[in-house]
């Protein structure tokens, strides 16, 4: 037995020495890429990036394929405003728990299998959208299709496995933003496909049904691509790594405890509900809003609605970059202030949108609203990675799930029935954004401070991340990954912290151990 384990160890060591040279991209000691080459498909890092953002994009296209075609669907199915509102809520509520479960699934079977399985399981719901003939059917297909939005978590998880800390924020931001963009692209794609099918000779009530096959096929193909070309970690897939004994499995109940008892995770879940949740709500209501209020046709309404979601191509990554930039000068306090200011500006433009009466004015305000709303999403996930190291997956899942809860709430309160006109609903949603963004001021990291108060003197990042492990676990050395992370997060103390050497181990971020 001892001889066998020695052989396995030797095998792994030899692999390590050869492997670093095998990667096309420069990597750190974990074989995570230290650079981000957007236009490359280099295996396995950039390939994983493109597979994950595109499959997430396809899930967004499917989940929001119905809204731009609602003017036709609502007549075919004889839907009422309440029916439409209920289905909109259903479309985002499935993912609330699915996002939490996805984090665990990634831990167990790896992001490749977890995301591809979820995508292939939900694809029949997209195809069967073409068969519905009642309000109940409409609600059910939107509910099950919406589960696929949990692929957000697998995207972020996969990027965190493939990219080194200095680049993980950018990778996460671009992958998240380009995926979310699907909610905008679909508002262009679906009306276009619908009009094309009508031109070929179909009646409207048949044409929209055929149109739904496009997002369905996109989804199926992207999942198959993930299975065929994707890889969980730089060194291989989970089943191979588990066999070689390289992965240590943490205790689920401890991870769970440290996630739910961290109040910062809950506050970020709430505030993410008022940037990402609002984004999902707008994806659901905005095409109908422009169609009904300003009398533009389906294609034009879709184009305007698309501009909102498509801004994600730059606004969310921009938010992530801005967060990193603020951290360079002001540390974590800068990240928190940046998040509050940007999200509040988003709320202000939402309020203005609800009170703008002209078409041209509404379009301009919508574009500004979109910029700040989506940048706030990027800024949120500039803070989330630092809330916990041990329970990173679950905290990300909580934040992501909170986003969907926000979408459920705003649709339930303002867009569900005929109580408020849509423009009033938008106005009040803006006010709710302003109010629900204030709790960011309550977030305080003892080692770095918060918006209003400075750090606790003498408290270091090591103290914070070590406190997640019991003495017993620390003796066994389980917390070493957290310590490494604490060292690398010295920069979050801002310029002054770096100078006065608050951390016990002042290891600059640029130098990662390269001895292989």
């Amino acid at each position, binding site marked *: 037995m001892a001889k066998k384990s020695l052989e396995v160890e030797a095998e792994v060591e030899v692999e390590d020495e050869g492997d670093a040279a095998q990667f096309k991209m420069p990597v750190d000691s974990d074989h995570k890429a230290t650079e981000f080459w957007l236009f490359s498909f280099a295996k396995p890092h950039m390939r994983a990036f493109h597979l994950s953002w595109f499959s997430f994009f396809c899930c967004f296209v499917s989940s929001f394929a119905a809204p731009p075609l609602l*003017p036709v669907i*609502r*007549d*075919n199915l*004889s*839907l*009422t*405003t*309440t029916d439409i509102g209920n289905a909109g809520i259903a479309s985002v509520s499935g993912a609330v728990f699915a996002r939490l479960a996805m984090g665990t699934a990634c831990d167990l079977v790896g992001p490749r*299998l977890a995301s*591809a*399985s979820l995508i*292939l*399981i939900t*694809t*029949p719901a997209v*195809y*069967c959208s*073409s*068969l519905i*003939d009642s309000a109940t059917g409409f609600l059910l297909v939107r509910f099950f299709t919406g589960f696929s939005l949990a692929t957000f978590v697998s995207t972020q998880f996969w990027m965190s496995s493939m990219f080194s800390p200095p680049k993980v924020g950018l990778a996460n931001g671009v992958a998240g933003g380009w995926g979310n963009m699907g909610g905008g692209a679909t508002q262009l794609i679906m009306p276009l496909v619908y009009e094309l099918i009508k031109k070929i000779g179909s*009646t*409207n*009530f*048949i044409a*929209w*049904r*055929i149109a739904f*096959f496009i997002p*369905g*096929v996109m989804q*199926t193909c992207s*999942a*198959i691509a993930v*299975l065929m070309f994707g890889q969980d970690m730089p060194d291989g897939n989970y*089943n191979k790594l588990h*066999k070689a004994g390289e992965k240590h499995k943490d205790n689920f109940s401890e991870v769970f405890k440290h996630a739910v008892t961290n109040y910062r995770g809950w506050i970020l879940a709430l505030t993410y509900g008022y940037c990402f949740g609002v984004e999902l709500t707008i994806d659901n209501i905005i095409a*109908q809003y422009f169609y*009904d209020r300003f009398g533009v046709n389906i294609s034009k309404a879709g184009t305007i609605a698309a501009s909102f979601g498509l801004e994600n191509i730059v606004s969310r990554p921009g938010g992530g970059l801005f967060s990193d930039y603020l951290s360079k000068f002001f540390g974590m306090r800068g990240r928190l202030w940046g998040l509050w200011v940007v999200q509040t500006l988003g709320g202000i433009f939402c309020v203005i949108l609800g009170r703008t009466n002209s078409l041209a004015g509404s379009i301009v305000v919508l574009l500004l609203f979109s910029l700040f709303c989506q940048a706030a999403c990027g800024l949120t996930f500039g803070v989330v990675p630092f809330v916990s190291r041990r329970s990173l997956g679950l905290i990300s899942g909580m934040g992501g799930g909170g986003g969907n809860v926000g979408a459920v709430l705003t649709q339930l309160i303002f867009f569900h*029935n*005929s109580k408020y*006109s*849509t423009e009033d609903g938008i106005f009040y949603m803006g006010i709710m954004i302003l109010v629900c963004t204030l709790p960011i001021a309550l977030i305080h990291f003892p080692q770095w401070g918060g918006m209003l108060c400075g750090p606790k003197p003498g408290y270091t990042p090591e103290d914070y991340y070590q406190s997640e492990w019991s003495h017993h676990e620390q003796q066994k050395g389980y917390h070493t990954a957290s310590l490494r992370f604490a060292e690398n997060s010295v920069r979050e103390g801002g310029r002054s912290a770096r100078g006065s050497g608050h951390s016990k181990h002042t290891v600059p971020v640029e130098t990662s151990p390269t001895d292989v």
Partner: protein
Amino acid sequence: MAGLRLSKITIALLLLLIACHVGPSMAVLFNQLPKTLIVTATTKSGDVLHAGEDKFTVTWALNTSLPSGADANYKTVKVLLCYAPISQHDRKWRKSNNDLKKDKTCQFTVVKQDYSATGKHEYTVARDIPTASYFVRAYALDASDTKVAFGQTTDANKTVNIFEVVGITGRTTGIFVSAIVFSAFSGLALAFFYVVENKKKK
């Protein structure tokens, strides 16, 4: 001096422009339209018509008890299929509005033709008419296409002579089969890859 003349011309042009816009965009209000046309349809209260198959005939005539010359400015007649109140309930996109520019009650044109004191038209219910309850209304339009009078098959409260249309479902056999086949393919693809993964494990 030349500058002053130029600015006077500009102001005159601007006023002309504004005048051109003000004229036709004055709101036409429904409650001010005279009900001078008598409109009847061969559909009876509670009838159910199938889109794309069933027909009905609509007849319109000027109310003979009106003084002669009442229809002097009627140039065209436009007959529309309009939603009954029960089909407008909780559906903001079908709402009635006194300002006819914003009114969404009547969304489907049955026929539009030159005005004559009496007229009739046989209409096959179009394939894109949704399932709902309807009545028929006819507008008389003047030379500038502005509504100047109307008539309808129902009363002021829109409760009598309401008939139903059952729209096409849109679910063709081709769509049905394709949905099943594509869904099955997704499931099989997943199963296939799981089998391959398990084989790799062993």
